[in-house]
């Protein structure tokens, strides 16, 4: 095999990949390029921006915490278990990914709304979360948890089962195995899943609008503020979108750095 051919094949792959990369990046570049500094300044001082940004950060951090605390044990159980029933169950908890978000909002209302399936039986109707910040968090958990569960389950599956057997033979209890073997070994996978899940929660729009409504400072997250601004002024919507993209990019970069750190630690240990 001559060197030229190797090089040209490498460039062919790069060119093909470049098409998709350009397609994904161009709209984001346009978001920045097609604005002027003064228009951005006007947009950023739009009254909705700050309360929405604060609410978005608060609710997504809370929803991420819930997803991590409850999702990690669930993923561990799913990753360890086998059998057809478990497979079906695993697929079922992935379903919120394919459900259109507005439909997810309707489903949340039908389950937990004022006329919801469980309302009045399991808890009094005065507990109903609809139209509150709690509803925002619920919507975010609903749409974002599957991304984490998927990543975490496959991360746990990659752990060699013999490692667990060894740990158990040394007398480690299930909780000890979970915290001291499973989680450290799959840390990069868990972190990547958490980042995906958080990003999905930050961009969440449809289910929130349906289940939590749109009230400034209470349920109006950044994506809802963008949509509301669109009714007033496209430039304002563009400015808020830029804020959202920048915030998301910064936080995902942080996660990337953490991820690199974690996998380096893992490599060094043996």
């Amino acid at each position, binding site marked *: 095999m001559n060197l030229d051919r190797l090089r040209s094949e490498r460039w062919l792959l790069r060119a093909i990949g470049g098409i998709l990369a350009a397609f994904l990046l161009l709209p984001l570049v346009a978001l920045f390029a097609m604005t002027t500094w003064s228009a951005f300044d006007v947009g950023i001082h739009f009254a909705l921006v700050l309360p929405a940004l604060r609410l978005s950060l608060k609710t997504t951090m809370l929803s991420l915490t819930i997803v991590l605390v409850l999702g990690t044990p669930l993923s561990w159980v799913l990753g360890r278990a086998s059998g057809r029933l478990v497979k079906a169950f695993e697929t079922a908890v992935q379903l919120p990914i394919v459900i259109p978000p507005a439909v997810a909002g309707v489903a949340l*209302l039908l389950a937990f*709304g*004022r*006329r919801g399936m469980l309302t009045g039986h399991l808890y009094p109707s005065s507990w109903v979360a*609809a*139209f509150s910040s709690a509803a925002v968090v619920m919507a975010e958990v609903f749409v974002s948890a599957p991304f984490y569960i998927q990543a975490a389950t496959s991360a746990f599956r990659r752990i*060699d089962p*013999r*490692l667990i057997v*060894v*740990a158990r033979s*040394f007398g*480690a209890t299930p909780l*000890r*195995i979970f915290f*001291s*073997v499973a989680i*450290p*070994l799959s840390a990069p996978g868990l972190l990547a899943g958490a980042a995906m899940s958080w990003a999905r929660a930050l961009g969440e729009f449809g289910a929130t*609008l*349906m289940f*939590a*409504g*749109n*009230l*400034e400072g209470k*349920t109006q997250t950044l994506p*809802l503020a963008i*949509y*509301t601004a*669109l*009714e*007033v002024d*496209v430039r304002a919507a563009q400015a808020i979108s830029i804020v959202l993209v920048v915030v998301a990019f910064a936080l995902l970069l942080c996660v990337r750095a953490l991820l690199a750190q974690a996998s380096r630690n893992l490599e060094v*240990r*043996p």
Partner: protein
Amino acid sequence: MQPNHETLAVLKFGRSGLDRFGASRLWLAHRACVFFGLLTLVACKQSKVAPESRAQTATSEDKLVVFAAASLRAPFTALAENFKQSHAGVTLTFSFAGTQELRTQLEQGADADVFASADQRHMSELEKSGYVSGPVLFARNEPVLVVAKESAAIVHGLSDLPAVKRVIVGEPEVPIGRYTLQILDRASTLYGADFRARVEVKIVSRELNVRQVFSKVSLGEADAGFVYRTDAQGAENQVKVLTIPPAINVIAEYPIAVVAKAKHPMLARGWVTLLLGKDGQEALNHAGFLAPSGSGDRP
């Protein structure tokens, strides 16, 4: 317990079992790819028919693209049959969405022939910047108060609105939200100066379109909300519909105009004529719209 050197060695050399597992997965994935590939092929073949027939009669107008406010869906689709009978061989395409979205699409060069707006303001902005010409009023729509079944017993009219727990309105920038605020202001002259404030503390959400206001009241999540008569039309078994006193109501006006760069201006004018004629007005009336001229305040 921490994994030590030995356990990690097990991890490193224990790959062969995984390979067999991976191979069967690969086979499955391969099968799935073939299946979806075939599916795509079939789908492509079927969709190929349309462009050819279009090319044959490209010179005369055979297509009409109508952009219309979401509230016009029922009467417009009903009138489509009517239009096709008088214009044989014409393909009608509708795009129903919020007036604001349609306006943005038109400004970005969307391929439409005629635009029906639920709001005068957006239409006059479009006219000012030359995207449409000569809008005419073809219908009006009256805001009403809808009340969820649970609250039907305590709300008998607009004046009872402060008695409920959750009121839902449109965002002030969408037409229904703007009209709602005007109605509340005017109601203050009838029901006391603090009426608007007493209602506003009960507002739990400002929705981005009128359908969301309606669906939340019909689902019982909100007690009451302001929507158009046409939204409540035919849904009397889901919600209680209360008329707002005409003296304080604000009637929405629906203008229609031919798009300046329309590819099919003749058919577009034909659609406007149909709407203003007897059949068009009957269909609109059936859906709950008011005739374009009549009494009632302009927003």
